[in-house]
Structures are given as structure tokens and as C-alpha cells.
């Protein structure tokens, strides 16, 4: 005996979309309000070895260590840039308070952009109360240059700090 199943017309099921739309709007509002527009950040790597390197016969192919002295004014702005000063603070090549580009040109002429640049080492000796942005400016101008096309030419990669100077010193 064949069983006949009647195919009845299915009633249209209306789905209530209101709760879903509510949730979607809430999520959307959350993401819009928590959105934080930030600029890209990058790092400058510095290595501060625990022990001082042993003094030995300097490699003739290596650029001698470069020291940059950054002086501060009383308000913390840059009061002078001196390249390779003597131990007593005298001598060296002085640049103006905003002579970062001259510093870059001078460093580039000393180390070039080849393998010598990779082995070159710069020590930054800054006054205690110097605004930190000046140190970043110094590192930027020493570590390379970006041309108009956005291409970066690397210079000095080994950067370190001299021991901190006393406050007000």
C-alpha cells in the first residue's frame, strides 16, 4: 500500500531582524569609538655592552670611533653640536645649534656608505637636561638619509651612549 504524503504549501516564516540589527549597530558604535588613529612608530637599535671593549691595535680599515657632544641650554634645547672634541671638551668640529644637516654631511664624508659605515661606531655624549628629541635628531642624521623618492641610505649603525653626565653638568 503506497503511502501518500501530501505536499502542503509551507507558510512563509518571517524572521525578526531587529535584534540582529541592534547588535550590529552596538558593535559598530564600539569599534568606531575605540578607534585610535596613531602614526607609525619605529625603532633605533642601540647596543650597550656590559664591559668596555679591550684596547688593542686598531684596524687600519676601520673608521676610528666618532664622538658627538651635544650641549644643552638652560631650557633643554640644543646649545651646540661638537664632533670629536678632546677629552677636556675643547677642540673638535663645532656645528651650529641646528647644524644637523652639516653633521650628516661631515659623518658621510668620514664613513661613506659602504662596509666602513657598517663598522663605524658613534658615541653620543649629551648633557643631562638636553631634550630627548635632540638625541633622536642626532641619531637620525648619523644613521642615514632618506632621499625624495623615500629610499634610505644607511650610514652608521652602531650607536651608543657615553656615561650619563651629572644633572646641571
Amino acid at each position, binding site marked *: 500500500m503506497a503511502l501518500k504524503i501530501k505536499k502542503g504549501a509551507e507558510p512563509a516564516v518571517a524572521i525578526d531582524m531587529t535584534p540582529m540589527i541592534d547588535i550590529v549597530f552596538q558593535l559598530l558604535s564600539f569599534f568606531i569609538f575605540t578607534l585610535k588613529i596613531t602614526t607609525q612608530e619605529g625603532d633605533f637599535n642601540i647596543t650597550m655592552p656590559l664591559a668596555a671593549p679591550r684596547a688593542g691595535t686598531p684596524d687600519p680599515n676601520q673608521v676610528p670611533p666618532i664622538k658627538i657632544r651635544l650641549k644643552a641650554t638652560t631650557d633643554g634645547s640644543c646649545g651646540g653640536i661638537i664632533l670629536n672634541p678632546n677629552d677636556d671638551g675643547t677642540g673638535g668640529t663645532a656645528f651650529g645649534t641646528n647644524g644637523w644637516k652639516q653633521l650628516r654631511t661631515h659623518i658621510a664624508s668620514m664613513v661613506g656608505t659602504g662596509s666602513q659605515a657598517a663598522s663605524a661606531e658613534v658615541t653620543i655624549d649629551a648633557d643631562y637636561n638636553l*631634550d630627548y628629541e635632540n638625541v633622536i635628531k642626532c641619531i637620525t642624521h648619523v644613521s642615514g638619509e632618506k632621499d625624495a623618492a623615500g629610499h634610505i641610505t644607511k650610514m652608521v649603525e652602531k650607536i651608543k651612549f657615553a656615561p650619563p653626565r651629572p644633572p646641571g653638568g
Partner: protein
Amino acid sequence: MKIKQCQGAKIEIDMTPMIDICFQLLTFFVFILSFEGADQDARIMLPASELAKPPEKPEETPITLQVTKDGHILAGGQEFPTPESAKSLLNAEKTVLEQRGKSVADANIIIRAHKDAKTGDVQKLIKTAQEVQFVRFSLRAKDKE
């Protein structure tokens, strides 16, 4: 005068395009959501640099230390009044690294200092970290563009 109230016809608005747009916006915001800035503090205004480019691959063991304009150190949800006082936290980080079988030489200390912070405070912080045997440091700056 009598005004007849006529029965307005029931207008059904098609919600489909609006829901589509909402989902697209939602998807966009979910994808751009980033938790990288979770350790950033509004008090820190980074110095700008044209050469500051984000690292190609994320650091395995980064330790972020922030230096405010007045020389306070912010790290691990705590605030330290001087760079030297952050030594306890750095010692704790060292212990955690050693428990994970890593050395302090593998760790990278990321310093996010305010642009007007004193350089001496940043140097003191580096010196404090050196005393706990950390040797790798990164000075963070924001992209100038």
C-alpha cells in the same frame, strides 16, 4: 469641518542594503583593530624621525619602558618616580625570562620616551637596565610623515 482620517498604506522599507553596509563597516573595523598600542600612554609624545621605520618582524621578548616628561618611568602598569626605582621591575622581568629558559641578552628593551624628557633620565634608565644585564635597547620614535 470634518477631516477624514484616511488609513495610510503600510510601507515596507527594504533593510537589506543597510544591513549589508553595516556588516561591511563592522568587518572593516574588526580587521583594523590593533592591540599593539595597548601599552602606549597618552602622556608620552614621541619624538619624530624620518628614519623611524617599524621592525620587519615583531620582537620575541620586548620589554617596553616609557619615560614621561618629568622623568617618571611607566612599565608593566606601574609608575616609578625615578629611573633607578624601576630596577625591581627589571629584576622581575629577568626572573620571568630565566624561568622561560631565555637569557636577558635575548630581550629587547624598548624605550618610549617623551620628546621633552631629559636625556639624562633616559641614560639613567639604560644604565639601570644594564645593571640587570640587559644589553639590547631600542629607542622608539614616530614616523615623521
